[in-house]
């Protein structure tokens, strides 16, 4: 069964707006990672947050982790059309990585 579950499944916004995606998981983790997948392309790693971290920034990305709620959020600020992609979270519980179904983000120019 899948470990990470992203929410919402699809998100459509205008360029310049912020996009927030959420991920929930079921078991204890060592770290949580967010990936992006452009249509027809491979997965690109975005950011990793460890279980003892609560927030992490990378450029226009901000990730939070709440281990008590077993959830994480990915915020993309000042979105661009090039941010249009599917976003996946992955956890490493039990020495493996399990992915959710992803959030499909569409940024309209």
């Amino acid at each position: 069964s899948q470990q990470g579950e992203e929410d919402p499944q699809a998100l459509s916004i205008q360029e310049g707006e912020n996009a927030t995606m959420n991920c929930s998981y079921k078991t204890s983790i060592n770290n949580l990672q967010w990936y992006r997948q452009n249509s027809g392309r491979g997965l690109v790693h975005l950011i990793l947050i460890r279980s003892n971290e609560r927030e992490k920034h990378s450029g226009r990305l901000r990730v939070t982790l709440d281990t008590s709620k077993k959830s994480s959020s990915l915020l993309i600020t000042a979105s661009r059309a090039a941010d249009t992609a599917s976003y996946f979270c992955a956890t490493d519980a039990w020495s493996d990585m399990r992915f959710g179904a992803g959030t499909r983000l569409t940024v309209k120019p």
Partner: protein
Amino acid sequence: GAGVSQSPSNKVTEKGKDVELRCDPISGHTALYWYRQSLGQGLEFLIYFQGNSAPDKSGLPSDRFSAERTGGSVSTLTIQRTQQEDSAVYLCASSLDRTGLGYFGPGTRLTVT
């Protein structure tokens, strides 16, 4: 480059035939994972190798699927008697260890006709 590589990039096969997909992980990475992504679907975990430990095969969808990792490096995913529902992109990833950052290969697009 020093990334994860997969071959072939595309494979078209007839229903009932066997196929082998190859993954070359990043040198020194002890953990290797196989996933597949069917059209419009999310990523589905298939199998995980960690060092010399027995692999976690809990994601393999049927006994037609098998994988091996020779010498702790290259891995081969074998699908026997392929079915049309096996059509998907098969992704391989590796990481330094079980808690490390995962790096993905470009995938193999398998089409079963």
